[in-house]
């Protein structure tokens, strides 16, 4: 078995990917105009004060050594200190992570639970009005921008019905965190669910026509079993790909959704970092998100191998 060598190669690949991301983001950010010292001191800053602050923040050092120092810190598990919050970046990320993580996870779970049965239904009734309806509705789901869905959900469930809070996060002594996550998770999940329905339906149909299903049928297996065993198992591969592809979009999309719903997650922290030119914070956030995406894709690849007997791990 090449499993160990494969895993090792994948792990090295992941590290290289994350380092590439960190390098890209570091140097891209340096090209972006704007000076953190100016943003911190505002319009009344004197040139001397700006110079002082730049020195204090280490902004007077050349780029190369700064990136090198940051990398060395990374090895020690130290992401540096936020220029604006003056606290360790790792601590800030740790505070925000749960919100984004729970939000993303909830959106994926919601999307999967909604998409699977609907896709099966459509596939079994392919070509009928039921199928057409499913296709149309899922297409419509893909056609609506999440932030727009979010605003509509706020109007319906907060303003009209008064069931859920319009935004913000749980205050101390105020019920549970979950009620604040329902609407944003829903808004995030609708496009994902629509995409999943589309892909699942398509691949189930394709798989059905493949030989091994025909063989299974010929062997006299009951119709339902054919669907659930073979079709679904094989259809999950493209579905995992979709999830992998969406992971980045979900984390990225959370920037907008967190802004609309005033959620204190990673997305808004990164937005804050960009506006304030807080490069250690931005750098930490980007690398963190990238690592999460890379990890999910790695798991996706592994699951590939488990789900599809034809692709052995050594191929990929």
């Amino acid at each position, binding site marked *: 078995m090449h499993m160990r060598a494969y895993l090792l190669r994948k792990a090295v690949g992941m590290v290289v990917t994350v380092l590439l991301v960190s390098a890209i983001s570091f140097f891209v950010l340096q090209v*972006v*105009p*704007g*000076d*953190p010292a*100016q*943003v*911190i*001191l*505002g*319009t*009344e*800053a*004197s040139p*001397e*004060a700006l110079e*002082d602050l730049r020195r*204090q923040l280490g902004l007077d050092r050349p780029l190369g050594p700064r990136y090198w120092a940051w990398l060395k810190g990374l090895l020690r598990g130290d992401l540096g200190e936020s220029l*604006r*919050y*003056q*606290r360790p970046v790792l601590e*800030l990320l740790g*505070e925000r992570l749960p919100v984004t993580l729970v939000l993303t996870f909830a959106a994926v*779970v*919601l999307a999967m*639970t909604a998409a*699977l049965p609907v896709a099966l239904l459509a596939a079994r009734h392919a070509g009928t009005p039921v199928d057409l309806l499913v296709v149309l509705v899922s297409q419509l789901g893909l056609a609506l921008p999440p932030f727009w869905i979010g605003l509509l959900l*706020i*109007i319906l469930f*907060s*303003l009209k019905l*008064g*069931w*859920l*809070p*319009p*935004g*913000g*996060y749980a*205050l*101390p002594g*105020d*019920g*549970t*965190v*979950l009620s604040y996550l*329902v609407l944003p998770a829903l808004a995030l999940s609708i496009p994902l669910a629509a995409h999943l329905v589309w892909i699942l339906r398509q691949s189930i149909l394709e798989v059905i026509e493949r030989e091994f299903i025909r063989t299974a049928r010929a062997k006299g297996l009951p119709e339902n079993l054919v669907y659930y065993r073979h079709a679904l198992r094989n259809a999950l591969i493209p579905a995992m790909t979709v999830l992998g592809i969406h992971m980045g979009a979900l984390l990225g999309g959370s920037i907008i959704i967190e*802004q*609309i*719903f*005033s*959620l*204190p997650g990673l997305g*808004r*922290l990164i937005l*804050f970092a960009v*506006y*304030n*030119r807080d490069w250690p914070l931005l750098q930490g956030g980007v690398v963190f998100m990238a690592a999460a995406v890379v990890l999910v894709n790695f798991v996706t690849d592994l699951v590939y191998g488990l789900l599809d007997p034809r692709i052995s791990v050594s191929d990929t």
Partner: protein
Amino acid sequence: MGRLVRILIVSLAVALLLSGVGWGQGRLVVGVPADVDGLDPHRTVAAATFQVVCNIYDTLVEVTPDGRLVPGLAASWEISPDGLQYTFTLHQGIKVHTGRDLQAADVAASFQRILNPATNHPRAADYRVIEAIETPDAATVIFHLREKNPAFLSNLAMGWAAIVPPEAVAEAKFRPIGTGPFTFLDWVPDSHLVLRRFPDYFRPGEPLLDEVVFRVIPEPSVGIISLKTGAVDVLSWLAPQDVASVKADPRLKVVESPMNGIYLLALNNARPPLDDRRVRQAINLAIDKQAIVDGVHWGQGQVIGSHMPPVSPFYAELTDIYPYDPDKARQLLAEAGCEEGFELTITLPQPYDFHIRNGEIIAQQLERVGIRVRLEVMEWGNWLDRVYFGRDYQAATIGHTGRLDPDPFLNRYTSDSRENYMNYQNPDYDELVKVGAATLDMEERVRIYRRLQEMLAEDAVAVYLMSPNLAVGMRANVSGWQIYPIDILNLRRVYKEE
């Protein structure tokens, strides 16, 4: 998968049930559009921070809603006849949040911190005039000034002059310890900040609330729904278009006041063709300011004629110098050799929607006199660098706010000021600013600063558009809310009627 779904459904149901639970009495939830960027008043320029920390820290002098300077931590003060020595007597029994008494030495230490270059106090220059601080006894602080400074007393009332006791210094950014009516309890960045009543506050009977929660709501559309559904008791900034609907709602009310600030279209006086006064005057005549007040700000503001808001006692009424007169504008452009019009790039600051909208209307109006406008939106960090400090622009929409003394408002136009981003050069103006900054007599000062405003208007240095109103929306049972000429949300006397 099935179990997961069940867990999800159950937890959703629980969440729905619990979200209806109300909070204790005496707790006020205030929706704010931006989060604090830390809690150290000496190390920030963020308006959001001063709005909040004024409840944790006190200043020696305070300002009333109508702009008068009144005692804060200082019960009284005396100014020597030459204007060089300010003697403050502290209130009796001021407690620091740690429980000890506030001493004169703490006040001196706080100002030494402001003046220490290592602190990086963004407005330290306001206090450089202090030559020495003396504390003859525990209740007396004497400031010796290098020169006469009429703005000194009002500068002591600004949020960035707050008295930060030495024990707060180490963690002032996220664990403030002051003398104010509320103590700091918790801050979850980008979410909320909680303050609790300080029982030993030096003003008996205050504050009236037990707890205050500042909740960050960046989206105005979410903010207004939060107010209407009761998720917040107060919305500290109502978007102009929402004022009418809040007023119409019997459960809600609006407290409003003209703001101590102005919006303008800055013109780069050094860039052709804007270096020609006639062109700048033509731009002034071509802009219908009232249409901007009505169109962008729903009537929530007042047209102005120079660099001063009408709430200031130093305000000069100059709105009739440049009435809306497109014909005369065209004529002036022709005189200046621009009968074919010209191309003007207006730089708009992101993410300030109202400045961007001001720019959009201005563009429409200028097109009508033949000026072809190109709008360029620039993100704030970039804007500061390019427009404000780099002076690399033609025209830009922006606002100026929040000082009590006219000098910081108007000294930016002196030839050698670093903040003279409009590149105005006028030796007479420079001279008069110097005179104003050294004049103590109030009537004389009013005369000087009105003359300065006239000079700016005559030279059409910029297009002074309007002074906006501030509207605060709140539940009908919230009482005691006041709006101040500096940007603070002072909650000392606010209470909820049951």
